[in-house]
């Protein structure tokens, strides 16, 4: 019982990292209808940028912000100058996923070419441990939880209460219609990719902090969990992605209690398979059906 | 009554019974849509829709944009599963069967837009529709050309006849994606005919087609009726509907609001207001 509770702590940390990552992934998809397999590699790249910052003496949390900004800008540029031209050319979503895979290969191995196949390490404080019931957290973990929750709340506030957020939802629902009713769709799409890149970059650094190290294949593992969370929540559903992140995050760590640690990613996969078999539209079915992703 | 007498009576009555059976068979509709509803996220796209189509007739399904006509067509064609209701075709209920079953039973649907196999030639588009062609199974394919060649040749000839009838014979080797919009619609109709259908579901076959091609499509459709194929036609071009259809079903906001022949339906106030109130 104690073990279950203490891994709940880890689960909350993992969920907090997954939150911005899955939100970012989903925002991209709902804005442009492109499934970006390169998202994991973009996160990894940002995490390495974070590493570069720290090794130049910049504080860990400033590095996180800088890496997030870097992630946002690269994401925006990639969409503007790589993905959008292909879409304009009429490349099918079928072709687009091949493009994002190619992108993923390029990013991942560029990282390997620059920093090598070994892990790099963030400078972490060896500070005290905070106990909350049976759960215990390092100071860094507490900040990670705070950032994850804050980013989720900020997303919620933006989508719900700002004009931009409402426009974003309109574009996600029906881009041609939104454009026809005067929403500047291109600007909204740019913004969505900027934000999602920021979220992904921040999540990359958060993952690096949580693992204490960063390696070039880090994004692959993360991508499985992001996809599991996104599919569980319902394709293209930001709130679904939030719920999916929490469920998958906690489940990953709890299953590590039952199974051995190396098997933990498999539980995310099992959830994915079960969802696909029983309810392929995910918990929040709306967008998946509207976009014809799942029936 | 003695058994013998009984037999005599039966003997006498048989022709009449047979005639009655034929009569009842004649009135048996080919397609019967019964109380069909479907809801998407609380919104009722189709609400308790019922109508029938007799063999060899053309029925028009009309109504303003968003009335649920295309959705109704998708339900009948098996693409969308209704929340409730039945779709009886040729004596069997289609609801709950796999989506490709409708076509196998002789009910073939065409598409409003983008129904062609773009990077297949026109001839290939037609051949795909042939039901149960030899060489469509893995073993048949592995058996080699000799096994399926003859049956394919026969279908190629039939396809050429159909294409000639639609004045598309010279396009047989063109990729469907290289044709004009109107030609694609013709190819779709030709393709549907290759399936040897009892009935076609046509989703706006004349939308966005130039006038001369539209006329050709219209002629094709009425010749199909002459061949005994029933048609359900969703169409915005009411002139064509009036010329082709012996009966129309009018839908608005998911339900049927009128049914009858075009001139009769056209004079009704509720039909007019549904059109005028919605379209503009």
């Amino acid at each position, binding site marked *: 019982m104690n073990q279950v509770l203490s891994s709940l702590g880890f689960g909350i940390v993992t969920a907090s990292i997954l939150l911005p990552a899955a939100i970012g992934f989903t925002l991209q998809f709902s804005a442009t209808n492109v499934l970006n397999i390169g998202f994991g590699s973009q996160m990894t790249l940002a995490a390495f940028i974070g590493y570069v910052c720290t090794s130049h003496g910049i504080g860990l949390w400033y590095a996180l912000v800088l890496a997030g900004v870097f992630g946002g800008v690269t994401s925006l540029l990639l969409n503007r100058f790589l993905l959008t031209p292909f879409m304009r050319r009429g490349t099918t979503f079928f072709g687009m996923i091949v493009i994002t895979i190619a992108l993923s290969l390029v990013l991942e191995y560029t990282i390997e070419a620059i920093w090598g196949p070994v892990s790099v390490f963030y400078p972490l404080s060896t500070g005290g441990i905070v106990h909350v019931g049976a759960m215990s957290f390092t100071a860094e973990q507490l900040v990670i939880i705070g950032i994850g929750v804050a980013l989720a709340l900020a997303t919620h506030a933006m989508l719900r209460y700002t004009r931009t957020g409402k426009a974003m939802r309109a574009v996600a629902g029906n881009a041609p219609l939104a454009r026809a009713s005067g929403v500047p769709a291109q600007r909204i799409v740019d913004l969505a990719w900027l934000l999602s890149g920021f979220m992904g970059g921040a999540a990359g650094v958060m993952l690096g902090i949580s693992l204490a190290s960063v390696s070039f294949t880090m994004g692959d593992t993360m991508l499985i969990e992001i996809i599991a969370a996104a599919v569980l929540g319902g394709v293209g559903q930001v709130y679904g992605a939030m719920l999916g992140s929490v469920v998958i995050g906690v489940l990953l760590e709890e299953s590590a209690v039952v199974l051995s640690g190396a098997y933990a990613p498999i539980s995310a996969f099992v959830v994915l398979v079960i969802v696909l*078999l029983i309810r392929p539209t995910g918990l929040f079915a709306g967008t998946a059906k509207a976009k014809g992703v*799942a029936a | 009554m003695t058994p013998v007498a009984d037999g005599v009576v039966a003997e006498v009555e048989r022709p009449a019974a047979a005639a009655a059976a034929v009569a009842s068979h004649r009135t048996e509709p080919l397609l019967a849509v019964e109380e069909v509803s479907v809801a998407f996220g609380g919104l009722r796209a189709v609400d308790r829709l019922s109508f029938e189509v007799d063999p060899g007739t053309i029925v028009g399904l009309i109504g303003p944009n968003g009335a649920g006509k295309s959705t109704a067509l998708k339900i009948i064609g098996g693409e969308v599963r209704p929340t409730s209701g039945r779709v009886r075709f040729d004596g069997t209920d289609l609801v709950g069967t796999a989506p490709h079953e409708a076509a196998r039973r002789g009910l073939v649907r065409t598409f409003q837009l983008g129904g062609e196999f773009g990077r297949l030639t026109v001839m290939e588009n037609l051949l795909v529709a042939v039901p149960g062609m030899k060489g469509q199974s893995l073993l048949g394919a592995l058996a080699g050309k000799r096994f399926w060649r003859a049956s394919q040749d026969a279908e190629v000839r039939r396809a050429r006849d159909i294409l000639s009838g639609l004045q598309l014979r010279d396009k047989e080797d063109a990729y469907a994606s290289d044709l004009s919009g109107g030609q694609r619609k013709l190819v779709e109709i030709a393709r549907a005919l290759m399936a040897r259908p009892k009935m076609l579901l046509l989703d706006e076959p004349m939308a966005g087609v130039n006038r001369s091609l539209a006329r050709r499509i219209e002629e094709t459709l009425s010749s199909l009726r002459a061949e005994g194929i029933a048609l359900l036609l969703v169409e915005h071009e009411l002139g064509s509907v009036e010329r082709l259809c012996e009966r129309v079903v009018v839908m608005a906001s998911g339900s049927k609001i009128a049914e009858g022949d075009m001139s009769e339906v056209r004079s009704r106030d509720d039909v007019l207001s549904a059109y005028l109130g919605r379209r503009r």
Partner: protein
Amino acid sequence: MSYYLTVMAMYILIGIIAAWGLNLQFGETGVLNFAYVMFIAAGAYTTAVFTLGHPSANGTQQYFWGTHLPFPIPWIASMAVGAVLGVLVGLVSLRRLRGDYQAMVMLVVSLIATYLVSANTGFLNGQTGLALIPAPFGSVHLSELNYRWFFVAVTAVVALLVFDVMRRITGSPLGRTMRAVRENEAAAVALGTNVVKIRLLTMAVGGAIAALAGAIEVQFIGAWSPAGWTYPETFGLFAAVLVGGRGNLGGVALGAFLVQGLFLEGTVLLPSLGNPDLVGAVQWITMGVMIMLFMWFRPRGVLPERRRRFATEARSRVPLLLVRAQRDARG
């Protein structure tokens, strides 16, 4: 050098076989099987356990089960496993999802399979992988080099057989239905095609071909580990199909020759760039860039799918001029 030539020839042939299997799925039916390398691995592991013998006889490595059966039984077993696995993966991932989501799920399947096998040492010797896998045709007595050339020749024959199977399928009405599914799923359904069945069929046949490639490879190199089938390997094959020309068997073979042979294996011949990791990384970066360039400039590949025409007269090939003359006379 001659020794190295056998390696090159072998990798090219295996690459061609594997690329043909992928082409059936991706090029013909339009299934984006991003777990393709997993099927190669399944074939390799199956042949490994069907040749290594009982696990207790192999003190140094662990695996869950094993036996020793003569050629070609292990290869056939591999194909069977590949086919069954194809159907299973297809049943989970191809259900009611749009194509790109299907692909993503496949990618996850591939990553997870690597995890599973790496994490569980008792299953297939984990991260270390299996080694000392015996070569086939033990009864053939040849010098080592001649034996290798003999193996290459056998593989070439297998490749010819695979080509014949692929040609039969793609040229048949079944192949046409597959391309119809690729072009327009909804229209195929509306014409009575059981799209699920067609996709599962492609998964099974493609899976069997992939597994066969894996089976040959594992007996040639004698070892197999998770490092050899990470997900980028799948994209090496995708690149081969894209570059060569999806839907064109000759094009795909050319693509496999270029990408697998010259590009991936041929670079080993180049003077080392110093850091061996760097060579690998640069290869994959170039691969990614090449995929993008081809998608932009030549999305149908070097040798595009050919247009299929039907003889005008069923049996005799009437010269075109004659046909024209007849048509003019009629018109």
